[in-house]
């Protein structure tokens, strides 16, 4: 049965160009990049070439790019590393209530350890932070603002550039971090345009393998390493470099640049949204226009998300849900809750995330299959 993969916000396949770029570094060019001999230097070259590609992509300097294992690690390093390095009595962090758990849990950890106080900005019904709320939340102790570039569950884009400008106007330096994981493929990531000091991202959302990510650290940003040992990555992140994966990440970033035409995804997303909204009792979540072109999330009345996913999967369509039933803690999606969507409604959440290879036929098939599944599950439910 044909598989239609529409869960690209969760992860993407490794594309063959990326895979081929990585291959030599497993069986042939396997040297430790820190060794001075020929094989070491060969591996070192692979790492530094990747670093250069990534630095170019962000309009950053080479020494401002640190390789990590994933965005979660980058986020941990950015938040904990900054607070530790600043070593202040009462540092204050401002973040949003719709961040990825990596940001939220790291902030909660800092709060619980008494290392920082945190303000979690509310969002509007579309999941956007309001600049007025941010401005009001800033105090003399605020040292870090951390707002994701675009939301992974509903696709809403945050006003990163405007936040950067707002922070520049403050009377003291406030560092600015953004989790750009979902934005890399589709939005302007020039760090000077955005005005960010720290930027986290990962490979496996951009057709590189799982297990590699990076952190951009603007020169002059105080940061304490969270991984101690050897002096890799300018002593910012110990551990023998994961050469093949770093090479893969570099290649993937290069391909993002080449893949500048987003018109296909935009067009298919429009069609998908139009088709899905034909089903009665279905609402689109997230901002109607200020949204990523590849994510389309809905709430479907009268059905539960996991059962939707299972029946869709049976028909070869792979999507995801924010339903509480799929969370290990059985809590509804914190993003949908922050947007004011009650648990009974967020239960029926359904997220599609298109990929670079999603076709017209794929979208048409979803439009054909989904209504029947929704009807079936609605019939299965007791009338309340």
């Amino acid at each position, binding site marked *: 049965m044909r598989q239609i993969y529409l869960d690209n916000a969760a992860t993407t396949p490794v594309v063959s160009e990326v895979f081929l770029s990585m291959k030599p570094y497993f069986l042939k060019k396997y040297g430790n990049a820190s060794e001075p001999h020929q094989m070491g230097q060969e591996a070192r070259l692979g790492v530094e070439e990747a670093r250069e590609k990534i630095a170019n992509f962000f309009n950053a300097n080479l020494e401002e790019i640190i390789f990590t294992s994933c965005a979660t690690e980058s986020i941990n390093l950015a938040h904990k590393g900054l607070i530790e390095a600043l070593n202040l009595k009462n540092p204050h962090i401002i973040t949003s209530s719709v961040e990825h758990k990596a940001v939220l849990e790291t902030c909660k950890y800092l709060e619980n350890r008494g290392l920082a106080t945190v303000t979690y900005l509310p969002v509007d019904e579309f999941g956007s932070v309001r600049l007025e709320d941010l401005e009001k939340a800033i105090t003399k102790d605020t040292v870090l603002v951390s707002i994701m570039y675009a939301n992974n569950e509903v696709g809403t884009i945050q006003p990163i550039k405007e936040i950067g400008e707002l922070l520049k106007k403050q009377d003291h330096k406030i560092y600015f971090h953004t989790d750009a994981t979902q934005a890399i493929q589709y939005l302007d990531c020039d760090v000077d345009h955005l005005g960010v000091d720290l930027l986290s991202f990962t490979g496996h959302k951009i057709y590189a393998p799982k297990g590699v990510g990076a952190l951009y650290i603007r020169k002059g940003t105080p940061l304490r390493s969270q991984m101690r040992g050897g002096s890799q990555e300018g002593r910012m992140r110990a551990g023998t470099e994961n050469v093949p994966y770093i090479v893969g990440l570099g290649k993937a970033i290069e391909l993002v640049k080449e893949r500048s035409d987003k018109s296909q995804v935009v067009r298919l997303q429009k069609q998908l949204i139009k088709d899905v909204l034909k089903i009665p009792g279905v609402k689109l979540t997230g901002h109607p226009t200020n949204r990523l072109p590849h994510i389309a999330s809905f709430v479907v009345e009268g059905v539960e998300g996991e059962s939707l996913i*299972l029946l869709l999967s*049976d028909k070869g369509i792979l999507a995801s849900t924010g339903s509480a039933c799929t969370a290990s803690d059985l809590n509804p999606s914190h993003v949908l809750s922050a947007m004011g969507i009650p648990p009974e409604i967020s239960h029926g959440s359904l997220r599609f995330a298109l990929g670079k290879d999603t076709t017209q036929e794929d979208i048409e098939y979803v439009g054909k299959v989904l209504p029947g599944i929704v009807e079936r599950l609605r019939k299965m439910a007791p009338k309340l």
Partner: protein
Amino acid sequence: MTKLFDALYSKDVIKHVRSPKNMGEMENPDGVATVGNPVCGDVMRLYIKVDPKKDTIKDIKFQTLGCGAAIATSSIITTMAKGKTLDEAGKITDEGLAEALGGLPKVKMHCSVLAADGLRKAIKDYRSKKF
């Protein structure tokens, strides 16, 4: 046979989600109960028709709004309860349901608890109406 990890769903669970048994509304049930609540995401309704002479479940139907485990446990409980005496049916446990489904992840056991509870409440409903 020990499981290496608490995997999501067994083949049997998926089978029930795909083709649930005895799904639907029952007209004039002898006993009915609705358990769960929409906030946690699972709502099950169980309908039973009882043979008063043999005190057995003549017919049983379910309706569920919930995840895969919720659908599977309410579906399989109808197959396990049909034909049984009310006493026997009332003794079906959450563990019994999980076993019959080839196991359930720990986080999903609350669904089997709900299904067993729903059946007991439907039986209670019938008994209370009889007198």
